[in-house]
């Protein structure tokens, strides 16, 4: 009994300590991110790695998600004779929820995992240590630009996701199911507003980019410096980012659209 209590106590303390470490790291990341103002090259390289290289997977996923939304929306709405409103359904789902959320989940899998693995390996092979010995702060030189890149890339990727998804919905609804194009767009436009819908979607995606970058870097930076340690950190990074994004999405939705 006391053994279990002790285990619980230790787990709690470890968890709190990890959280504290993560928060401290976040503070240093935010301060360090100013480096990209002095050396924009560092940011450009990382935006390429996490943003440009994620474009294809984001666009293809978005197209399919939009097409499925178009089909499902049509079959649901046609029973009520409201099939003209399929554009509304597609656009609102994408802009408010699926664009930011699915983008963040894909980002965690595609870019976040590689950030964790990269940082973890750099640590395991003493590259970060040797950088410190060269009087170069790895948090500022390596971690902070990657964090800034996630912050820039996720909102842009989410916007691409929503836009491509709407196009996918259009292709199915108008091209395949024969809904009037004008009605498709004007129903959508009458239901979707820049504020709150699109703005809230953008705010969500900024928050998700923040969380995804933070967790991925923290996991890599604190990974045990072994092959196993890095692979465990990578998996856990994706899992934790996904959970954090979904939980945060609920919170933000409750706050925004109450």
């Amino acid at each position, binding site marked *: 009994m006391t053994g279990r209590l002790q285990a619980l106590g230790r787990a709690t303390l470890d968890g709190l300590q990890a959280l504290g470490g993560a928060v401290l790291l976040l503070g240093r990341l935010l301060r360090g991110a100013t480096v990209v103002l002095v050396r924009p090259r560092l940011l*450009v*390289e990382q*935006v*390429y790695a996490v*943003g*440009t*290289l994620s*474009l294809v997977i984001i666009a293809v996923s978005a197209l399919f998600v939009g097409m499925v939304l178009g089909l499902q929306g049509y079959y649901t*709405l046609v029973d*009520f*004779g*409201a*099939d*003209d*409103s399929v554009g*509304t359904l597609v*656009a609102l789902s994408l*802009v408010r929820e699926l664009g930011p959320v699915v983008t963040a989940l894909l980002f965690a899998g595609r870019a976040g995992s590689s950030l964790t693995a990269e940082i973890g390996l750099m640590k395991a092979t003493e590259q970060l240590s040797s950088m410190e010995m060269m009087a170069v702060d790895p948090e500022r030189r390596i971690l902070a630009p990657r964090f800034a890149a996630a912050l*820039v*890339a996720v*909102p*842009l*990727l989410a*916007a*691409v996701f*929503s*836009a*491509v998804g*709407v196009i996918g919905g259009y292709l199915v609804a108008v091209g395949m199911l024969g809904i*009037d*194009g*004008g*009605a498709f*767009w*004007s*129903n*959508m*436009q*009458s*239901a*979707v*507003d*820049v504020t709150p*819908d*699109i703005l809230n*979607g*953008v705010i969500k995606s900024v928050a998700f980019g923040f969380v995804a970058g933070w967790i991925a870097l923290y996991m890599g930076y604190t990974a045990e410096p072994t092959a196993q340690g890095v692979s465990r950190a990578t998996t856990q990074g994706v899992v934790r980012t996904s959970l954090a994004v979904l939980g945060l999405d609920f919170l933000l939705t409750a706050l925004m659209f109450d």
Partner: protein
Amino acid sequence: MSERLVEIGVGAFVALGLAALLVLALQVSGLTELRQPPGYEVTATFDNVGGLREKAPVSMAGVHVGRVESIALDPETHQARVTLRIERGYDSIPADSTAAIYTSGLLGEQYVGIEPGWEQATLAAGDRFTETQSAVVLERLIGQFMTQMQD
């Protein structure tokens, strides 16, 4: 990977992202402040617009011909003044046509339908529909039905 390619890649990515945001603002939400589509405006006055919203479609014989630009309350008559923007190309709507508010399907959104009249003269920019038919408000309909039943 050469620096040039990286820079081009990032430039393209950022441009695409911003373009997507623009598409969302203009095409998806129809931000009219930034985009004034060609066409002309006419007005119609209704006793009750029900759930009609700005940017709702305007159609004639089921064909999309324009959309609702704005909805405002007339302070004197206490009626709803609805401004419709008719797209370019549909400039031969008879002047005695009727503007009516319908619901697409049972649960769908409300839209303005135009029933053509017989006059030779056509509506031009700034004209007003003389004949209108307000939205059918389901609650009121049910209420009327109930009172008739009691009689």
